[in-house]
């Protein structure tokens, strides 16, 4: 087991290296440079700027320099906002994306898990069909449709929530719902399927035969076991929501990493593009590793060698 973890962690290194190399190459192949402005700078100034940032070095040297600095925790300067480094930018914008992701996961869990549970306990009744229809609706309505609708109803018609921006808790409600509701539906379907499987198990019958109250059977015996597959998806769900929150960040003008990524590509701000890409790749790799580990921890029948 320990061997497996070590091997997986070590394997993440070449993966990140290749991702950085691909991103570096793609970013540098894009025509135009960071100092191209609508009003062109004099050639001498551009040459000086390029020399200052090491952009006149051959590409392989730029890449190895970048890696060397990155290994020392320095992800380089930002070309478009001169006074800030990539580390500054990520430490101001990533927490925003992460907060949004956490809130969306909470929305997904609070809405999705009870919905799935009720649906399974009332299998094939009107309540079940209603919950599952809602779940299918939630999976199908994209944030691009839901976001504007929520803004229109709650911000423009009812005037109870702000339209956009980030900072107060009121501003977080609409984006968190927009981002989380699709995953809520996903969790509801997962909880239902797993719950249906569990309530047919022998130990549930045993518990009932012992005279355990129905409430206790549902919560202590059934739900606890039914949530296992649900818990394992929370990690990757968080990673997916954070890395996929660009749409919601764009709709609600939230200053998160995703929105900044788009701006940075447009500005040819290579270090920022690379930094955000590597950060998100790391997030995904860690999430995937955690899932595999929780699987074997929860279900000892799964063994990795």
């Amino acid at each position, binding site marked *: 087991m320990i061997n497996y973890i070590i091997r997986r962690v070590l*394997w*993440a290194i*070449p*993966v*990140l290296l*290749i*991702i950085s190399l*691909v*991103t570096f190459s*793609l*970013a540098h*192949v*894009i*025509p*135009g440079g960071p100092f191209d402005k609508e009003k062109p700078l004099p050639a001498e100034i551009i040459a000086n700027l390029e020399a200052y940032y090491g952009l006149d070095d051959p590409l392989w040297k730029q890449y190895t320099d970048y890696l060397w600095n990155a290994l020392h925790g320095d992800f380089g300067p930002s070309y478009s906002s001169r006074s800030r480094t990539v580390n500054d930018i990520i430490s101001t914008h990533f927490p925003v994306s992460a907060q949004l992701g956490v809130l969306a996961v909470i929305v997904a869990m609070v809405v999705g898990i009870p919905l799935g549970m009720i649906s399974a306990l009332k299998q094939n009744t009107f309540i079940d069909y209603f919950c599952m229809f809602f779940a*299918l*609706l939630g*999976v*199908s*309505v*994209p944030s*691009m*449709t839901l976001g*504007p*609708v929520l*803004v*229109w109803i709650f911000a*423009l018609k009812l005037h109870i929530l702000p339209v956009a921006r980030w900072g107060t808790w009121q501003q977080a409600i609409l984006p968190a719902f927009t981002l989380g509701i699709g995953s809520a539906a996903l969790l509801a379907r997962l909880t239902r399927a797993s719950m249906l499987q569990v309530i047919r198990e022998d130990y549930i019958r045993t518990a009932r035969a012992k005279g355990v109250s129905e409430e206790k059977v549902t919560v202590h015996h059934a739900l606890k076991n039914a949530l296992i597959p649900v818990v394992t998806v929370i990690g990757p769900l968080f990673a997916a929501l954070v*890395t*996929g929150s*660009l*749409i919601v960040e*764009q*709709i609600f003008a939230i200053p998160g990493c*995703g929105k900044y*990524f*788009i701006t940075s*590509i*447009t500005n040819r701000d290579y270090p920022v*593009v690379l930094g*955000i*890409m590597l950060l*998100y*790749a790391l997030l*995904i*790799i860690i999430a*995937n590793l955690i899932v595999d580990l929780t699987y074997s921890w929860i279900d000892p029948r799964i063994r990795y060698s």
Partner: protein
Amino acid sequence: MELKSNEKKEIIGDAVILERPEVSLWKDAFRRMCKNKMAILGAIIIITLLVLAIFAPYIAPYHYAEGCLKENYAKPGDKYLLGADFMGRDVLSRIIYGTRISLSVGIIGASTAFILGVLYGLISGYYGGKIDNIMMRIVDIMYGFPTLLLIILMMVLFKSTFAVTTPGTIAGTLSAIDNAFGGLFFIFIGIGVTAWIGMARIARGMALSLREKEFVEAARATGNSNFQIMIKHILPNLIGPCIVAVTLQIPRYITFEAFLSFIGLGVNPPTPSWGMMISEGYKAIRSYPHLALYPGIALAITMMAFNFLGDGLRDALDPRMK
């Protein structure tokens, strides 16, 4: 005992043998799916959308690019059923033409993912060992990429590299193709590059377990080549779950395109994409909320239809999953 019309009773001695004509997996699945109302509804919606997409010029009241600036933001009414946008273009017509974009992205995305992914997974899973190891390491690397960021990076690359090209060169031809598709060609490539990975994992897992089955051994014993076994014996057995998986992925490809168009990296104006219409409408949401709402509804209905169909297909092909 009563017999169904397709059953036959044969009496040999004391034994009564009931015979039913052979039913193939696909016929059986089709029969099961026809009983699933949601799946039928999904299929009907998709067929309707296909008809709208193909016959858009005959159905839409106006051309998608035709606008009257004097009538911009016209209210929904007799002349413009769903109103007009900021350039005075008919929203209904643009939504109808927009089905072309969303459906082609969904279908092309699904076909690329399916063909590349299934072939990749089939080879990897069937041969196993070293080949499998190397091929799956490549998948691992692709899996580490944040998909949306990679697609955005590629779109910026395509858009700016092929913005100015000389005709006759490869770049010129590519950009001419892209222009002919209204900017869609590069979206196909962007989605194609990332879409096959999940499919490859599913196909590989199935090929890995199928190659241990007796019928594969039997096929090998009767002298079939590796290629024949893969195509004739393993492929037909893993195609079902892969079709289900790819159908359920179609909504994802459709949102990718809508999102790219939303942030201005998708189709070229005036090609009507629902994502672009939502982004244009969202800017005027305070006064004209319907402009963002209608294309949004069209997008949601399309995604729902594919989800209904995918769910129905899954239940039909694998009744245990229900």
